[in-house]
């Protein structure tokens, strides 16, 4: 009975240990997955997820949410969507952080209902304030996008006043109010709050400029030029919205009849910003138009003519770039400037093109989200092609290595060496046993454990004893053997005394050496066992590997071919879009050119009419 209980106890202890161990390994795998996820290494995170998937319960649910978020961030939103639907159907038990990541992706994709569903699963107490702010912003913005303005307003009221996320939510709400033709005190207060409670960071300042700009545009459209001017004046002169602000400020002044004040911002605009900017081009025609309004017709005519020349040279440059666009390396140059080597939506994409003539014209193109997505996709495909090429090469090297491992393993002579070592070890063990016997015997033996010197002395005593015995046998009267006999007995007695005195220390020393020898033999025994194990494990480094490598190599090659083809197609599509953009820009320039020429013609015509009517030209017109 006792025996049974002991066995049961041992068995249950082992089982508990195994379960604990499994749980801990799972924890490590989960932690590793989070590490890759949080440091932005999504492909590695996906690898980890595969191992994690085999487990059940809450972990698997959380894995679902995280996988959906990752697939979304890698641009694979359709698969993510199907996982998300599954999660909703079977309920969920994932962390708030996971839901936030998922909500973020849905929000980026403009899937506001799905984003709201994800946010509903977040527990505010589980998130840090920064993350919570983002979640609240997404919720408010989603409500706005879905037309539920009251809910959005309540949400914004409950958000911390001076957070950037609150500012962004207010910005979206202001846009919604403009779209709904709301006006009045509440709108003015909202704009005031939105621009006042913002953090003093670059992001905060840019957002303030943006809110001011959209407000100004709204007021300009509704004919409230003074209000528009007030907002435009509050904008910085070195932000991303400065060109639009300068242009609109000029028009606001024109609307109020303050023509001279309108010219200054436009001159500034033309001096400081790219001539291909639509705002700059518009201001080129705006300046002579205002001069006309000021009745400075000659100056207006001169500027129209200068503008026409300028537009013609811009058009020439555009045509030149457009003709050589397929051979131009602007796209490759842009890819080379990217510091982030990851692919997918999480990659930190720099949208500024390297500085040259082509990029000066195409920079406007990169402000379009669709084109940036296309360019990012092209870059992703390039990275994937490079990755596949690298892996193909590495797999080829692995095949060589596996072959070498197999060859080495088959030609390696291990067993005879192990057998020889085993025999030597057995012999050593026998010797040890013999020596232990010797130690045992030493208790009984008078001359036990002699040293080399003592051994010589014993031999000498033995030989002397034989000589004395021989002399005694001969027994001549002239020889007194008794003296030798007494002397021998005396020497023997002293020697025996000495050896006996040293016996205990000798036994102790001998025992110590035997213990050390025993330890060495045991260590060698373990080493031999481990070497046998290592020999048994060694085929695992090559057996069945070649077939696996070859299968994956074939897959890699096929995929690489597809990726290369898609890269070529992607570049071709981008070139077509860039050409369309350049054609559009050329048409815009043509329009401006036509307008300036018409104005020139009109001014000449008016001068002609005046000449016909009065018979004289002004001084300027004569020139």
């Amino acid at each position: 009975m006792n025996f049974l209980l002991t066995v049961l106890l041992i068995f249950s202890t082992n089982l508990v240990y195994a379960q604990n161990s499994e749980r801990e390994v799972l924890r490590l795998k989960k932690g590793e997955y989070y590490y890759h996820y949080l440091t932005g290494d999504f492909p590695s995170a996906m690898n980890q997820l595969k191992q994690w998937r085999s487990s059940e319960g809450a972990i698997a649910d959380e894995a679902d949410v995280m996988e959906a978020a990752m697939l979304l961030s890698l641009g694979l939103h359709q698969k993510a969507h199907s996982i998300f639907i599954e999660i909703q159907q079977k309920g969920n038990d994932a962390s708030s952080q996971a839901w936030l990541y998922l909500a973020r992706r849905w929000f980026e994709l403009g899937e506001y209902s799905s984003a709201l569903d994800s946010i509903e699963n977040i527990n505010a107490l589980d998130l840090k304030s920064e993350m919570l702010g983002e979640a609240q912003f997404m919720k408010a913005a989603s409500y706005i996008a879905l037309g539920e303005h009251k809910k959005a307003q309540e949400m914004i009221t409950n958000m911390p006043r001076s957070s950037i996320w609150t500012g962004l939510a207010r910005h979206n709400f202001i846009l919604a109010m403009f779209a709904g033709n709301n006006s009045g005190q509440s709108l003015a207060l909202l704009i005031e709050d939105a621009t006042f409670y913002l953090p003093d960071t670059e992001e905060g300042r840019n957002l303030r400029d943006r809110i001011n700009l959209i407000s100004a545009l709204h007021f300009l459209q509704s004919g409230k030029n003074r209000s528009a001017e007030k907002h435009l004046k509050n904008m910085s002169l070195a932000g991303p919205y400065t060109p639009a602000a300068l242009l609109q400020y000029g028009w606001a002044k024109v609307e109020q009849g303050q023509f001279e004040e309108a010219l200054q911002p436009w001159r500034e605009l033309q001096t400081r910003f790219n001539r291909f900017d639509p705002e700059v081009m518009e201001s080129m025609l705006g300046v002579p138009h205002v001069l006309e309004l000021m009745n400075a017709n000659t100056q207006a005519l001169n500027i129209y003519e200068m503008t026409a020349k300028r537009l013609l040279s811009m058009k020439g440059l555009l045509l030149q770039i457009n003709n050589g666009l397929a051979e131009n390396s602007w796209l490759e140059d842009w890819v080379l400037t990217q510091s982030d080597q990851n692919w997918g939506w999480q990659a930190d994409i720099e949208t500024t093109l390297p500085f040259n003539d082509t990029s000066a014209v195409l920079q406007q193109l990169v402000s379009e989200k669709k084109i940036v997505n296309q360019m990012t996709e092209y870059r992703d495909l390039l990275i994937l092609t490079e990755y596949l090429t690298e892996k193909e090469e590495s797999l080829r090297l692995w095949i060589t290595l596996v072959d070498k491992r197999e060859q080495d393993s088959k030609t390696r002579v291990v067993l005879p060496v192990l057998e020889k070592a085993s025999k030597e070890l057995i012999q050593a063990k026998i010797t040890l046993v013999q020596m232990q016997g010797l130690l045992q015997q030493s208790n009984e033996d008078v001359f036990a454990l002699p040293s080399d010197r003592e051994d010589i002395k014993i031999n000498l005593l033995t030989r002397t004893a034989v000589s004395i015995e021989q002399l005694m046998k001969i027994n001549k009267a002239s020889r007194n053997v008794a003296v030798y006999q007494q002397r021998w007995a005396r020497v023997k007695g002293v020697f025996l005394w000495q050896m006996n005195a040293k016996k205990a220390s000798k036994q102790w020393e001998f025992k110590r050496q035997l213990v050390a020898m025993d330890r060495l033999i045991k260590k060698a025994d373990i080493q031999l066992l481990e070497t046998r194990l290592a020999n048994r494990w060694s085929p695992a480094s090559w057996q069945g590997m070649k077939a696996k490598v070859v299968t994956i190599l074939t897959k890699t090659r096929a995929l690489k071919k597809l990726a290369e083809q898609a890269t070529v197609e992607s570049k071709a599509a981008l070139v077509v879009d860039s050409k369309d953009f350049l054609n559009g820009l050329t048409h815009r320039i043509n329009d401006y050119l036509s307008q300036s020429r018409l104005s020139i013609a009109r001014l000449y015509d008016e001068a002609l009419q005046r000449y016909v009517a009065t018979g004289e030209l002004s001084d300027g017109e004569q020139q």
Partner: protein
Amino acid sequence: MRITYLLLLSLMSSIGFAEPVQISGEALENKASANKAKAQTSQLSTKATSIKQSVLELNRDLYQLEEELLSPATTRAAVYFSLSYGEFFEPYSINITVDDKQPIQYLYTKRQVSALRQGAVQPLRNLNLGPGVHTIKAIAKGIDNNGKNRELVLEESVEKHDQPLYIELKIQDNKEIQSAELLISQW
């Protein structure tokens, strides 16, 4: 003079209007080509998505294969590093040696430390260890909660059997002594 003006005027007008007429002709072509391009872009995007999906799947296979090739299960030993709370210690680097060989060195970025603080576990390296007992020495360098440089040192033995060995080095806060300590666990 008048004739010159009239000529100029007619010339200007013809140039001014000639181009917009041309544009409207091109505009129709452009619209058609834009629609075609849109369809092509969509197709291309689907193709790129499918390639990305396949690359992810291939990447998983490659990852497993490389793990098997580099360290078969029988000799595999994975070393992990984690940080529990990290209130009393922020790691800058870690140095690990196994049997005074196979040095592992790692320098941490802010992003990585932040990930570790959020409960992530860093996979430091997969090692190949033969059967038997091995000695692990680890030195974690960083700063304590007072901003002073600190080193946490550990030396322990681990035993390798025929199953993969998991070793976790963990920096854990000890509230009682208001300090952090480096611990090791193995499975």
